[in-house]
């Protein structure tokens, strides 16, 4: 027996903040979500809305600093760029969310470096022309949902809509490493997605490759590395009978989904493993449409998987906060918005 569940429930209940307005988050989309991972952005917004989580996109956000380019121009751009984002994200919010694992990782790293270096803070202040504010809490998408949605409430609402699916959780590397700085989940065995996935009625067995490398950005420089690494992840998932891989990182998604065809070509395999974003899966469970969630835009079709989803189970999605604790006693509703799209 793995004691996943114990750890996760601790994580969910941990900072259960009851103060109002706490479930409004400053939202940092980053370049991927406005470009190649548009469906991640769309599904995140829709799902959040359906769950009663308000996202306030940071106006005028800039590059998160993760792309290798800034590092080549100046050693400190990798901190100064995110520093500006942190600085402007704070307005009226205590926490921000960065769904892209790369952005999340860079923002957290920058925050760590700023905390530890007066010199960097001074540099940032010079650029910003005022003392830098960098203390805002940074969340990734998995963390945000774990905090805002209680598994019991979700299960109650979706009535086992995803029953029959077995979903492999795939965390990759950026969400949890370096462990001391990310301080999110157990980096050797992350489990944060599991409780909500199980609440949807789906099964989510232990996926031994959950934090194995997908090949990362080597896709540009040395494609073979990505193809080899991602092939393993997909093959193992297929071998263990999973219906789909669930991820929370646009780069992982790109390597596993978009390149699956290249993998098949390169190795003569016939892999056919849908790769879904975590927000898409939760959206499906809430009854949102697969086209609105952008699932239809993926390279590997999720048709078979969608066909498996129990029809008619669960009512239409209402924008309802399912936050653990805080909203449990009061009728869990922050107003009703028509189920987006469906």
């Amino acid at each position, binding site marked *: 027996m*793995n004691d996943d569940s114990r750890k996760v429930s601790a994580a969910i209940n941990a900072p259960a903040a009851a103060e109002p307005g706490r479930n409004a988050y400053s939202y940092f989309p980053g370049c991927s979500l406005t470009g190649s991972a548009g469906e991640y952005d769309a599904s995140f917004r829709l799902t959040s809305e359906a769950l009663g989580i308000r996202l306030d996109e940071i106006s005028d956000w800039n590059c998160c600093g993760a792309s290798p380019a800034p590092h080549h121009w100046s050693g400190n751009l990798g901190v100064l760029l995110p520093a500006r984002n942190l600085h402007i994200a704070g307005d009226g919010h205590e926490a921000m969310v960065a769904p892209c694992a790369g952005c999340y990782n860079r923002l957290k790293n920058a925050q760590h470096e700023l905390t530890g270096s007066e010199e960097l803070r001074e540099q940032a202040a010079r650029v910003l022309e005022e003392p830098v504010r960098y203390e805002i809490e940074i969340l990734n998408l998995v963390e945000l949902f774990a905090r805002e949605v209680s598994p019991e409430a979700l299960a109650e609402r979706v009535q086992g809509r995803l029953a029959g699916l077995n979903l492999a959780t795939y965390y990759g590397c950026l969400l949890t490493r370096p462990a001391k700085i990310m301080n999110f989940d157990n980096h050797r065995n992350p489990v944060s997605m599991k409780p909500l996935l199980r609440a949807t009625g789906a099964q989510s067995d232990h996926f031994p490759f959950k934090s194995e490398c997908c090949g990362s950005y080597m896709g540009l420089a040395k494609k073979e590395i990505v193809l080899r690494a991602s092939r393993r992840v997909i093959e193992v998932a297929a071998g*263990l009978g999973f219906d789909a891989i669930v991820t929370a990182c646009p780069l992982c998604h790109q390597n596993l989904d978009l390149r699956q065809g290249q993998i098949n070509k390169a190795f003569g395999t016939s892999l056919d493993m849908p790769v879904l974003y975590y927000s898409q899966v939760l959206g499906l469970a809430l009854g949102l449409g697969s086209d609105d969630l952008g699932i239809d835009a993926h390279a590997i079709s999720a048709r078979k998987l969608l066909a498996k989803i129990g029809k008619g189970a669960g009512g239409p999605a209402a924008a309802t906060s399912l936050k653990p604790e805080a909203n449990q006693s009061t009728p869990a509703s922050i107003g009703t918005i028509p189920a987006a799209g469906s």
Partner: protein
Amino acid sequence: MRIGVFVCQCGTNIAGTVATDKVAEAALSMRDVLHAETLQYTCSDPGQRAIIDAVQKKGLTRVVIAACSPRMHETTFRRTIGQAGMNAYMMEMVNIREHCSWIHSDIDIATDKAIDLVQKGVARVRRQVPLYSTTVPVTRRVLVIGGGVAGIQAALDIADSGLPVTLVERGPTIGGNMARLDKTFPTLDCSSCILTPRMVEAKQHENIRLMVNAEIEQVRGYIGNFEVDVRKKATCVIEDKCTGCMICQEKCPGKAPDEFNAGVGQSKAISIPFPQAVPMVAALRKEYCRQFINGKCGVCKKVCPADAVDYEQVDEITTEMFGAVVVATGYELYDWREAYPDYGGGQYPDVVTSLQYERMLSASGPTAGHVQRPSDGAEPKQVVFVSCVGSRDESVGRPLCCSVGCMYIAKQAILTKEHIPDSQSYVFYIDIRATGKGYEEFTRRAQKEFGAIYLRGRVGKIYPSNGQLVVMGTDTLSGGPVEIEADLVVLATGFSAARGAGELARKLNISYDQYEFLSESHPKLRPVETTTGGIFLAGACQAPKDIPDSVAQASAAAAKVIGLLSRGEIETSPMVAAVDQLRCIGCFKCRDVCPYNAIEALELRDGRQVAKVIDTLCQGCGVCNVACPPSVVSLKGYTDNQLIAETMELLR
């Protein structure tokens, strides 16, 4: 007052950083010092003779020795000045090696410090008075805790010398982990064949009393006279009546985990762990028993031909006096599951621990020696051994070496080939540690004769695939990743101290390390003693060890015990507290704080109640000295005057 100062050079250990002649010269100008000299090795025979000479020729009445730590040689030099005709306590050691020459590199700093320390020692010894130790009779009976091979060996050795021994084992049988092993390295002799006779011998020995299902409840007293409460746990079986026929076990409907077989196989709520158990007595585990769970069963009571089952039995506590204690509580395998999610965290049935595998190999094991993998009972053809799981791994907070893993892997690889001739074993290792007699040759045999393939590197991941397990690792010698499809994976899990070892240590007032292995008094020179007099260590409770080392340590502990108790009485330390009864106000604050109840009330002739220290109980902690409002309790050898003088001297 005539004080002599001896400054040790300790070869270059001290003289390399401390200008010892300057220290001796400075000493000569200290009050009452009329002799000072440097000695090359003070603890050597010529060194000690030089001290005796000086004492006798110059009529010294006090001696200061500036050398190594008093924890090292205080006893040596007390004896020396005793030989010179002085009271052994009129000597003070100051530590200019561990606390000075070895931790500084600047000669001036070290020399200044050494002079200060000598000055402090002189100030202290000037206020020293002769002290005389007393003797107390000892109880000539010995307690051995833990009935593994180490405990058995110690008990037998001590019992053979004529001393009565009580052997307390918390499990239902003695034998410990060795009883679970199939064959033993490096000779491959069968473990039961060599151990069972010794178990029986222990049971039959006229000087040994066996107490199984028993644990130490409380310990009072001190060296020579420990008063120990032992809790004998209720097993619902009357030990004297049970004949070991095992009918109850056969008929019992209550399934229970098989602890003896390390969880391979199943046992019953009432059972005898294995057919060679000693004593051959059943024990009932209430948590699995239907009679206790829902009050409906009573089968064992009905079928027992000896009428030995008694559901009303309760725990019993007995109290006994012992002169010495040997602790031999052994080890348990480290629970690897939480720390190694990459190996499946316990979710894959075909990933087993070394001890489970040992039971699978054993002819007396649940599969009668037919190796079958747990998932489907098939005979494994590809077996992968992973060494150092929970050993030598900083990333999971376990940097220690289990010291036997490399050896038992080699053994198990050999046995695998013997059991399944068409099998192939792979061994992932970090280094092969095989330092015992015949050990290196043994690991070579595993490779050369039995074809085990050794791969130097750690395993990164194990995952299931097509009914097998894929073991992903690195081979650092060929420099690349390797993957092996295995039918069975055996983890060489590290050693943890026995559950509750720390708690037991606290009861015994002995120290233990961060892994709860019990600490020896000195890693080199006092390896079986603890820091508490009269308590000794044997076997894997002190550190991971193999059988030969456990047995050797057990015999060493036995020798120490026999030596201690052969004297019939022991000297107590004279550094105990004393009350100035004339000035005692009878507040008894001292009695309230004393951890050893060593202070009692005494009525003087004038009817005044005053405090009195019981010398034989006082351990010399000095807590009372500080608690006394008029400062009239004083710890001999550490009096207020001495401590103040030392402090003042350093601040001059």
